[in-house]
C-alpha cells in the first residue's frame, strides 16, 4: 500500500488541495487530476520540452517532477497565458507568424518564450535559437517560431 500525500498548490492563480501518490508525475497531475490538458507529454524523459510549465516563475519540465514537488508552489501552465493581455501577445504573434502546425509542442514553446521575453536581455537570432534549443518541434522547422520571438522581443524593447 502506497502512502498518499496531501498537497496544496496554486495553479494559474487557483488553489488546489489534492491527495495523491508520491510517485505521481507533475505532468500527469496537471493533466489528469487538474484537467489542464494544455500541458502535453511528448517524451517523459525531459528532452522534448512539450510539458514545460513554470514553477514559482521559472520554467521546468513537468515530466521530470513529481506532483508532490509542487506542494506550496505557484504553477503556471499554458492555460494561464490566455487570461493575461500582455501574454496574449505571445499567442497572437505565434498565430501571425504561423509558428505552429500540429500544435502539440506549442504549449512548451509558449511557456519557454514567456520566460525569455520576461527575463532575458538578448535579442539576436542566434541567442534566441540557443535559448529555444531545448524545445523540439517536428512540424515547423523552427523558422517561423524564431521570427515570432524576434518580433516579440522587438515589441518588448520598444516599451
Amino acid at each position: 500500500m502506497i502512502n498518499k500525500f496531501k498537497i496544496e498548490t496554486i495553479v494559474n492563480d487557483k488553489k488546489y488541495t489534492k491527495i495523491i501518490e508520491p510517485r505521481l508525475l507533475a505532468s500527469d497531475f496537471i493533466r489528469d487530476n487538474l484537467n489542464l490538458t494544455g500541458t502535453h507529454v511528448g517524451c517523459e524523459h525531459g528532452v522534448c520540452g512539450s510539458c514545460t510549465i513554470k514553477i514559482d516563475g521559472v520554467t521546468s519540465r513537468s515530466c521530470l517532477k513529481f506532483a508532490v514537488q509542487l506542494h506550496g508552489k505557484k504553477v503556471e501552465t499554458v492555460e494561464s497565458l490566455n487570461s493575461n493581455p500582455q501574454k496574449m501577445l505571445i499567442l497572437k504573434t505565434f498565430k501571425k507568424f504561423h509558428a505552429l502546425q500540429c500544435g502539440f509542442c506549442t504549449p512548451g514553446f509558449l511557456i519557454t518564450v514567456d520566460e525569455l521575453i520576461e527575463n532575458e536581455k538578448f535579442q539576436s537570432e542566434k541567442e534566441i535559437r540557443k535559448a529555444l534549443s531545448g524545445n523540439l518541434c517536428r512540424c515547423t522547422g523552427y523558422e517561423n517560431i524564431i521570427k515570432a520571438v524576434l518580433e516579440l522581443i522587438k515589441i518588448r524593447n520598444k516599451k
Partner: protein
Amino acid sequence: MNNESKKYIGKNVLRFEDDRLLSGKGVYTSDLNFPDQLHLCFLRSDTAHGKIISINKDKAEKLKGIHGIYTHEDFKDVPPIKSPSRMKNYYATNQNILCVDKVRYVGEPIAVIVADNRYIAEDAIELVEVEIENLEPVINVKDSIKSNSAILHNEIKSNTILERTFNKGDIKFERDEKVLSVKNNFTMTRKSPVSMETRSYVCNIDKINDALTLYSSSQVPGVIKDALCQFLKIPGNKLNVVAPDVGGGFGGKASLYPEEIITALLCQKFKRPIKWTSDRFEDLMSTSQGFEEIMEVELFFKSSGDFIGLFGNIFGDVGSYSIYPWTAALEPMQVAGFLQGPYKIDNFNVNVKCVVTNKPPTGPYRGVGRPAAVFAIERLIDIASKKLKIDPAKLRLQNMIDKKDFPYKIGSGIVWDKAGFKNCLKSALKIIKYKKFKKINNKNNKNWIGIGIASYGELTGIGSKISVAPGMPLNTGTETGIIEIDSTGSISATFGIASHGQGLETTLAQIIAEMLGARPEDIKINQGNTSFIKHGTGTYASRSAAIAGSVAIKSSKKLKQQIIKVASHIFETNKKNIHVNEGFIFEKNTNKKISFHELARAVYSDMETLPIKLRKPLIALETYDPIFGATTTATHIAVVEIDSETYKIKIKDYVVSEDCGKVINPMIVDGQVHGGVAQGIGAALYEELKYDESGQLQTATLADYLLPTTCEVPNIKIEHIEKFLPDNLGKFKGMGEGGTIGSVAAIANAVSNAISHLNIEITELPISRDKLYNLIKSGAK
C-alpha cells in the same frame, strides 16, 4: 476554376485552428477522459526473434487495480492483420495482434494489461513472467536473403516477401568505350517519424445503441474504421472513428496498429471506456519506421554527358511484417519508382527485393521511398559530373526532361507532366548565386564549404488509377465533399480527410469561400470523423489539399448554382444578375441584398417566399477523382560548412524552388517546406534507429535518437513556381512531403562537395560527425 480575381486562394489567411491550439484548448486523443475509464499497458517482447515458451501472469493478476491480463489465448478468434496486394510474387505476412508462439521484433506486444490507471498497469508488467527461447535474430537485409538464414515466417518459407524488376528500353545496350558509367552502393538507414504526440487511442461505448467510438491519433480514420469493423465483427453504423486534434503524423500514424484493435476489442468486452497512450520508448520501438534500404546503382552516360541507362538493385529492409494497408511494397518499390527522377534516361533496369528482418515493420514516412531514391540518383549525378568534368548544375540541366517532352514516361512507368523541372533548378541556382561557389578550394581552409543540388519529381494528389502502394486494393484516389447551408444560414463542409497540422480547416475554407462567395471564417470544416461521410480514408501521400481541395470546388460550384437559383426567384430576376460575395447575395446594379441567413429562412422556414420545388435543402454532395496524379517538383540547394577540426557540419544557406501548382495559402506552403526540410536535415545528418546484432534498439530515447533543434535548422529561401498547372479541378499539387524528398540528397551532395579535396564520397546517411570522422580517418571511399 474561373479566373475572377482571387480573394482568398493564394492569400495568407491566418489559421482558424490556431486559437484553440494556442490557448491549450486543443483536444488531442490523450486529453480525453471518460467516467469509469480503464487504462491499458502492453507487455512487449525484449527479444528480437524467439519462441514463446510460457507466460505466467498469476502474480500480476492478483495486484489491486488490475482488471485483466490478456494474451493471444484470449483473442483466439481474432484474425491476424494481413495486408493484401495484387502484386505478383508478394506474400502477405500474418501479424497477430498479440504474439502467438513467436516474437519477431523487440517491442512486439505479447500481452495487454487492463488496470485502473497506467501506473498500476506498469506495476503489473513487472510481475508477468515470460519465458522466450531465443531464435537466431535476422537483423540485416543482406543476411536475411541468404539461403541459410533463419526464416521469420515459416508459412512463407523465404524472407524475401516481394520481388519485382522494372524494365524499360534496351537493357543490353551497346557498352563500348564511348559509354561511361559511375556505380556506387548507397545506404539509407532506418528512421522514426517521431510526431511529437505519441500514438494514443481511447474507445468509448454508447450502451444505448451498443455502438463504439474510437478516438485515435490517426491520419487515416476511414481506413481504420473499415478495417476495425472486420476485427470487431460489427457493421459500420456501430463504429465511429474520430481523429480529434492530432499532433503530427508524418506517416507514422497512417497504418493500422494492434494496439488500436485491442483497445476497441477490450472496450467491447468490458463495456467501459478504455484508454491507451504510448510512451516515447514504445513509440520509437513500435510505431512504423521509415526507409532503410541498400541501393546498388549504376548510371551510364556518353562522354558528352547525356544519360543512357540507369541500372540497379534495391534491397528494402521492411522489418518483420508487411504493414496494413500499405504493404511491404510501399517504401522499396517507390525507391525504384522514382529513382530516375526528372531526367531523360532511355534504358532502365532496376530490381527490388522487399525483405523481412527482426525489426519493427516499416511503413510510410514523409517522402516514402523518394528521399532514398533522390539521394542515390542525385549523388550518382554529382559523381558522374566529376568524372565528366562537367558542372553538376549543367549536367542536370542537360539531361532534364523539358516541357516539350511532356508527357514523359520514366523507366518505372510513372508519367511526368506539366512540371517546372528546369524552372525550379534555374530559379534555385539564381537565388543561391551559384556562380560564386565555383571557385571554392577547401584544401588549405579551416572550414570546408560545400554546395549541393538535388532535383526531384514526385507524384501527388493521385487518383484511383494509381495506387499509393502498387497492387494495394484500397481506393485512395477519391474524395467526397459535402457542403451545406443550414436553417440559420451557416455553412458546413465535410470531407474524409484528417488534418494533423496541415491547416486544412483553413485552406479548405479559403477555397470554399472563394467559390461560394462567403467568408472563410464563416465556414466550418468537418473532418477526421467517419460518421460524417460514407467513405473516406484520411490524410497522407500529399493528397488532401489537391483532392479535397478539388472536390471542395466541385461541391461549391453545385451549391452556388442552387443559391443563385433561389436568389433569382426571390429577386425576381435572371440568374446571371445574381452576385454572391462575403456571405451576401446581391442583384447586380440594384441595391437588393439578402444574407445567407435570409436565404436559408426562405428555403427552410418561411413557407411563403419560395414555391415547394425550390425549398430543397441547400446541400451539395460531390465526389472527385483526379484519376491520375500531378507532378510536383523542386530543386533544393544546400550550402554547408564543415569545421575541419571538429567535423561539425553547419548548414549555412538553403534554397527551395518548388512547383506545387496553384498555391492556396503561401504561409502554410512555406511552413510545410520548412518542416519537411528540417526532417530531411535530420535524416541526412542526425537521425538513425540503430539496432545491434541481437536486434536491440540502441536509440530508444530522444537523447539517443537525435532530432534537429533550433540550432541545426537554418532559415530557408523559398520560391514558388506557379507556371505548370495540373489537370485537377483546383490546379493544386500536393506538397507536404517535398521538403524531405529534396533535402536529404542536397545535404549529402553539399557535404561530399565540401570534402571533395579528400576524394571521399558520402554513400550512407546520416552522415553524423563520428561517421565523417571515421570516413576521413580511414580515407575510405
